[in-house]
């Protein structure tokens, strides 16, 4: 056995942070690498040493030569690749292992090669008698014609196109008809080439109603393979997992044993070592359900923490031990059955309302609540947070938009779900659009609560999941009180000895009762035109007693609502106000209601606030844009009519690189034609012509980096009707 006293983590973000944590726990020296864009990232700050990579974007972490150079330079005894980037690059694994004093923390290169190629993997599994989905995996003939022939003649639509070396939904397409097939193949190839450096594809029959089940396995260098139970990752959007759990709900004992056997056999078939995951597809329409081998991921998965929580095993620690040559029987204590239930939610910087478009920008405030709800039993009450970002960090267009993960653990699935929901409801990401509200909606969905749903749930429930809570008058009422208290506190804090800044004199007027007016708009939706209609105006009258307020809220065209608010307890800082309050409606006999907990987070730079409050045992969470009367006019100035209002200007829907331009000035385009393609964070986005028109101007060339909202193409004005 070798002693691994140090590790170079060839990754970034939350996984780098997570690996460094375990390494430090084991007393290992940790070495981080970073692209210049990540200079101040958390993983760099946590590591003992750090070295700069060359490229500004994701290519930095794909530059194997540079990383190997740094392994040498730092004297790291092993390289942990995390997931993505070089984690499934066989040549890199080989190179690490062939270095004098270093090892690759992961499977041997041959196993990566075999499983990394979806085609090869299919062949091996077919050979080993493992059931696979009908499809086409011949790499010798990748011509579009042949692929089309196979699709149409042998497999039949709908069909799933997959990049041979793909993963995480990239380079993956579902095609429902022959007509779309060619375009889909081309864009899948382009995406795959960008993400994985190879554009070969396989075809598989698309199974419309299926669950995504997977089995965690661990194998040592001595031929021993062990499973670590299963996970269910059926909640996916755009083929990317959003919520994962362990164990998979509603599987029979027999089914579980069947998939554990499939997984262990698959691993043995390729001589697997270290941690890996065998993904299966569970066809719900087949009689009694049918399990197929889908693929094997030869690395640590994003969702590995759910397995850790139900087994009590630190998978990264196990990876290091196996890589050092330890025997599983000496190091692995797997419980007989999973310990309770664990659930993970991935928090992405993306806009669920606009096809989950990745978002970039500065995270003004990141509050990931890890307190959770109290649960019975000796399970940890804390929710695990794996996150590589902190308040003030940037989410750039260069990398994956995942901000972090929250993982809960409960005695039952329901306990885990409630705990996760509560933690998410107590979390806030301000400054950038995220899927936080989306995942909360998912966790409250009846079908999700029941468990055992198929992978189309996110599509079927798209409207419900992307709905934002209405900005209710009570939230606005709480917000206006909080804004007032906070501003008053801030002024007093800035000038504690100034009489004129004393809280009791705030907004004093001679012989008048001056209201403090706020305009509040929903801010969930990046599409501002939606929001103006729902603007609520509040007028707040502080009573002489410092903590009593009279608040009048009105939406245009409706009678104002009046509340009398008494603040029972407050905790105020510049960024956040926590309140406990009671309120009454403005009717004489109305009873007093309590809001035991309200938390309001503010981001002044963007006039944003996140209001969360608990009332009648339910937690509401509302994200709003606040305009005080003072600023309302100035904002009006700034919001000059953007080019988006004129449909002759075609904007890029996200920041990124223009990879294809399919039109030229003077050309006539038909409605629905692809005008150009923008890529960011390894996703490509086709922008279509909104109507039949002639192209006037093309503002950019292929390869240009463009910012969100830039005008790429201008069409001829629509003739007046």
């Amino acid at each position, binding site marked *: 056995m070798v002693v691994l006293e140090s590790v170079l983590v060839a990754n970034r973000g939350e996984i780098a942070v997570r690996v460094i944590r375990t390494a430090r726990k084991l007393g290992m020296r940790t070495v981080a690498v970073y692209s210049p864009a990540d200079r101040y990232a958390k993983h760099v700050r946590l590591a003992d040493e750090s070295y700069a990579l060359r490229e500004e974007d994701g290519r930095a972490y794909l530059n194997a030569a540079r990383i190997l150079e740094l392994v040498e330079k730092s004297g790291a005894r092993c390289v942990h690749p995390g997931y993505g980037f070089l984690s499934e690059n066989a040549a890199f694994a080989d190179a690490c292992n062939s270095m004098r004093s270093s090892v690759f923390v992961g499977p041997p290169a041959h196993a990566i090669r075999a499983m990394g190629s979806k085609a090869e993997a299919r062949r091996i599994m077919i050979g080993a008698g493992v059931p696979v989905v009908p499809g086409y995996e011949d790499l010798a003939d990748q011509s579009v014609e042949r692929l089309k022939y196979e699709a149409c003649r042998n497999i039949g639509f709908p069909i799933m196109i997959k990049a041979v070396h793909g993963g995480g939904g990239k380079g993956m397409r579902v095609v429902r008809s022959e007509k779309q097939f060619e375009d889909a193949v081309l864009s899948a190839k382009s995406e795959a080439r960008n993400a994985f450096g190879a554009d070969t594809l396989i075809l598989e029959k698309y199974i419309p109603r299926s669950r995504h089940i997977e089995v965690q396995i661990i194998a040592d260098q001595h031929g021993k393979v062990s499973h670590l139970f299963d996970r269910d990752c059926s909640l996916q959007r755009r083929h990317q997992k959003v919520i994962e759990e362990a164990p998979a709900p509603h599987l029979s004992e027999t089914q579980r044993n069947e998939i554990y056997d499939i997984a262990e056999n698959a691993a043995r078939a390729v001589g697997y070592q270290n941690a890996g995951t065998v993904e299966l597809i569970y066809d719900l329409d087949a009689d009694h359900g049918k399990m197929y081998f889908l693929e094997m991921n030869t690395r640590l998965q994003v969702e590995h923490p759910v397995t850790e929580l139900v087994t009590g095993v630190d998978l990264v620690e196990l990876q290091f031990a196996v890589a050092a040559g330890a025997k599983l029987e000496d190091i692995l204590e797997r419980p007989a059955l999973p310990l309770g239930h664990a659930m993970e939610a991935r928090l992405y910087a993306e806009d669920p309302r606009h096809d989950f478009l990745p978002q970039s920008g500065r995270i003004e405030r990141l509050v990931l609540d890890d307190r959770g709800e109290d649960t019975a039993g000796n399970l940890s009450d804390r929710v695990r947070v794996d996150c590589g970002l902190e308040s003030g960090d940037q989410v750039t267009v260069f990398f994956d938009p995942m901000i972090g993960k929250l993982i809960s653990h409960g005695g039952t699935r329901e306990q885990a779900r409630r705990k996760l929901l509560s933690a998410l409801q107590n979390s806030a990401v301000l400054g950038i659009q995220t899927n936080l509200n989306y995942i909360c909606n998912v966790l409250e969905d009846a079908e999700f609560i029941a468990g055992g749903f198929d992978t189309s749930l996110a599509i079927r429930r798209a409207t419900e999941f992307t709905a934002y809570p209405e900005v209710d008058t009570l939230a606005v009422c709480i917000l206006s009180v909080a804004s007032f208290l906070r501003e008053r506190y801030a002024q007093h804090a800035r000038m504690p000895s100034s*009489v004129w800044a004393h809280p009791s004199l705030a907004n004093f007027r001679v*012989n008048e009762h001056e209201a403090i007016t706020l305009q509040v708009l929903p801010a969930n939706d990046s599409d501002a035109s939606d929001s103006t209609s729902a603007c609520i105006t509040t007028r707040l009258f502080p009573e002489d007693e410092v903590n009593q307020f009279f608040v009048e809220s009105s939406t245009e065209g409706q009678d104002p609502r009046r509340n009398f608010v008494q603040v029972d307890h407050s905790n105020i800082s510049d960024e956040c106000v926590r309140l406990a309050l009671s309120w009454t409606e403005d009717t004489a006999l109305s009873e007093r209601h309590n809001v035991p907990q309200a938390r309001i987070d503010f981001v002044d730079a963007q006039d944003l606030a996140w209001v969360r409050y608990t009332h009648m045992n339910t937690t509401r969470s509302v994200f709003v844009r606040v305009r005080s009367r003072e600023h309302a006019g100035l904002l009006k100035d700034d919001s000059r009519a953007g080019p988006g209002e004129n449909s002759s200007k075609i904007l890029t829907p996200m920041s990124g690189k223009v990879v294809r331009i399919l039109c030229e000035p003077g050309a006539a385009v038909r409605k629905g034609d692809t005008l150009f393609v923008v890529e960011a964070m390894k996703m490509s986005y086709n922008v279509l012509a909104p109507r039949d028109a002639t192209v006037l101007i093309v503002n950019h060339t292929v390869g240009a980096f463009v910012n969100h909202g830039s005008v790429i193409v201008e069409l001829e004005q629509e003739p007046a009707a």
Partner: protein
Amino acid sequence: MGARIGNAVRRDLPRALRNCERMQELELELKRVLAVDVLCGGGASAMQRHMSRGKLPVRERVHRLLDPLSPFLELSQLAGYKLYDEKPILPAGGVVTGIGKVHGHLVMVVANDATVSGGTYFPITVKKHLRAQHIAQQCGLPCVYLVDSGGAYLPRQADVFPDRDHFGRIFFNQARMSAAGLAQIAVVMGSCTAGGAYVPAMADEAIIVRKTGSIFLGGPPLVKAATGEDVSVEELGGAEMHCSKSGVADYLAENDEHALQLARDAMAQRVTAFTTGSSAASSSAPTFDAPLFPIDDLRYIIPSDSKEMYDVREVLARLVDGSRFHEFKPTYGASLVTGWAHVHGQVVGILANNGILFSESANKAAHFIQLCEQRAIPLLFLHNVSGFMVGSAYEQGGIAKHGAKWVNAVSNARVPKISLLIGGSHGAANYAMCGRAYDPHFLLTWPNAKISVMGGTQAANVLYTIQRDAAAQRDGQKKKANAVSAERDADGAAQELKLKQEIESKFEQEGSVYYAGARLWDDGCILPTDSRKVLALCLAAAAAGNRSVAAPSTHVRTAGSTFGVFRM
């Protein structure tokens, strides 16, 4: 510091209820007058015209100029109220003035209300503008002028234009304050004609709003008449012209909001450049205790009949921190209560009337004022006094001489002085208690206050006696021998009553806060329940630019040059 004073009020006693009822009537009347005739400006149609031009109402402008949640100590809201026959209600005298915070620093705001006779300057408008400037000078506050005015109100030009304290004095003050390092910022948000043009021209920095703002010495009609030149408002004095050609204004604003933001920016820059370290923050303790008794007790304490006596310490107990009062000479000259207390952590020397004034009270007051002056403690005068005692014993005791010592001390005290009329303020007592003539930094009234040379009843008696004696003398010359008949007696009694009533009602009317406020004899009528807040703000404002209270003459500060800023 000081002993706890005051007693809980029995609110259920008939007397207390009567008091409360009376005070609430007075408060309601004040609020009604303000709501109906003052705070809404020059009426709905004028406001509609004003706003249709994209202009904000004057108080809205002030509100947006100030920091969020800043207090606004508005002055003399009753100015011009029922003062001019041709314009019986001249809301707020056509100009809103007051103190507020901009970027945490106190500023004096002078804002024309164009909905009131086009923002033209009536004599009272000039007086109010000058008073605001005077307070700014005394307290060392920079000024922001929100200009929207047609200039002098021509029908009364004789009372607006020529005299020392008329229109010209505005610019004199601007120059002097600029020289003293007190920033003078003008925001032209409407017309700014003739003499008014000098407000931005004299300002350190001037902002003008595109389209609505204009500055010229003579408008297009006057130019046409004088030289025959045909010229548009924009060419003659529009915002773009002044910002690009004439240089009369410095910043071009797109609208009112933008202009006010620019004014805030100008102040921010100015404040840091000139007064780093100096701020509204006084050196006082940051925390303080609230009074032990609720302030609305005052309604139950102040007698509905002004002739009724009560202990003024009950008022103090509701105004000062922790109801603590360190009384000076409590058993000597007891009709004047003197002593020290704190208001919002700010120490203050208080002189409060508690009955008619005697020689002892005067000597005690003179002594106390000297102590405060020595210790640089601001003075607060609470007026409720019918005057000095009369009678041969007192004259022979030299009450005039003793009163003179007090007046002397008040006149020469250089610490900030604040007067609050909580009842009557009559005769020489008004002078001794730092009436308007003695230049208090602020003079405020309660709605029940009365100000006149003597009380109405006394005046009626005095005047009646004089008239009767004069009549008797005439009669005596005619019919020296005749005794007064019983018939004449009855007739005379009715006449006496009528005459006295007339005099009393005249005094009552002329002594009311509305009459006084309309003429700017005070800086504002406030609700008793707001008194503590207003006093706290006034004390802090008076100390703002006056870091060394012992040498208040330094309000003309050494910073800057001996000249104001010239517009080149």
